[in-house]
């Protein structure tokens, strides 16, 4: 009888939670920026979710629930690294990116001149990895995991207005970075 109860839980878990494993792995990779840490983070998250599966309410957003566990695991595991994190403003970020650019002497990016159609995937990746953690995290949740602002706010335990402003500033930083990459390749003047 115990085995039966155990296997029912497993079947439900495999149906509800395991389809999100790739999404969790992507998030783990992007959060930790290190394949080894991402693997540990994913395994820890799935096992913890299984252990606490009775706390999940069927019919609610399972991916958001799993991402909450992932994010909390990440935050716990990287506590000291988080503390050292310096929050950049978009202006600081712009200066940093401009400093990296071969054409760093140019005037600040003109948004009109951006050609997003021509950016390379690895540039998107590099720009995303270069964002300060709090901006990278909201873009991962909203753009990649397709959570709405309310869900992201709950997960991160921050006000919804903060999510909104971080999304806006995060995308602004992405544009700045992608613009700098494009200029470096001579795509945009």
């Amino acid at each position, binding site marked *: 009888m*115990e085995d039966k*109860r*155990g*296997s029912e839980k*497993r079947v439900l*878990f495999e149906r509800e939670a395991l389809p999100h*494993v*790739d*999404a969790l*792995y*992507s998030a783990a*990779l*992007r959060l930790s920026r290190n394949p080894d840490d991402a*693997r540990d983070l*994913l*395994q*820890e998250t*799935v*096992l*913890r979710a*299984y*252990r*606490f599966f*009775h*706390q999940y309410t069927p019919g609610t957003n399972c991916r958001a629930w799993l991402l*909450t*566990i992932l994010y*909390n695991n990440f*935050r*716990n*595991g990287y*506590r000291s690294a988080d503390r050292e994190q310096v929050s950049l403003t978009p202006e600081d970020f712009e200066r940093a990116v401009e400093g990296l650019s071969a054409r760093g002497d140019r005037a600040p990016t003109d*948004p*009109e001149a*951006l050609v*997003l*159609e021509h*950016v390379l*995937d690895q540039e*998107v*990746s590099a720009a*995303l990895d270069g964002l300060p953690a709090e901006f990278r995290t909201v*873009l*991962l949740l*909203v*753009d*990649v995991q*397709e959570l*709405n*602002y309310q869900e992201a706010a709950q997960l991160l*335990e921050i006000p919804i207005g903060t999510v*909104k402003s971080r*999304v*806006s500033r995060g*995308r602004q930083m*992405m*544009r700045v970075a*992608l613009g700098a990459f494009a200029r470096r390749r001579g795509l945009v003047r």
Partner: protein
Amino acid sequence: MNCEEYITNYLSAHADGELTPEEEHAAAQHLGGGPTDGCPKCRSRLAEERLLKALIKRQAGAIKTPEELRARINAALDQIDRGPPARRIGSAVVRELGRPRVWVPLAAAAMLFVVLLAGGGLSGLHRHAEPTANGVSAIPAREALDQAVYSYETFETAFRPTVSSYSLSAIAMDYGSADMTDLVWNLQYAGYGVVGSRIDQLPDGNPVTYTLYHGRNSDILCTRYKASDFAVPPGAVGEIHGHLLYEYEGYSLCVTVSEKGHFICVLTTSEPMDRLRHDISLARAFSIVR
């Protein structure tokens, strides 16, 4: 609305479908539709914002989990399903006793109340302990024990201490500074050394501390939570010096609720219950302030 206002306050939320109906209306008025009305510049910015979203999703979203990692996770899930290896105590197989996910049987719950009523030292602990009609305890108690058992299983293979020194006083000081109780089990006389300690946050944001002890045959993990309200789970198999003993998920557990009810402490070990009882009889409390 001018362009700057649109781009600063509306653009991202517009692309995300997060505008209120009123904002949506105001944004539509600014953007307009044709080449001559509204703002073609902001319209292209909106298109670009959506493209950026798609680029981010494409780049970061479609990563397949390596098959070998999936296999490893499935094997770990199988391991949880099986529970820890069964051990024999006398003729009883502990795993069979410990497996139930629900705090039964009723007879055991009833026994706990006899114990609680008989043991005056425990008064105050059981004010929330009334079982429901079927003898199932309130959820938080089970979560506290689940968390303890889960952590034990995790930490047995990999424990990353957050306190660099392994001395009891360094650990107690760290707990104290994190506003957790600085009372630490000293299991030295029972033959256990401290491996290290760790302060974490539970998914609900509350702090939790872990102290891992290593003995000759087994480890003991002390998991401590802050709590203002805790239902003592029924089903205890015994009591020692005011600590309640449980067999749960195949592990031996010792649950303590602090006198003022501010902390719950759960000792978890894979040792048989009589062994844990013996260890506790030899244990001392270590504290800086007392």
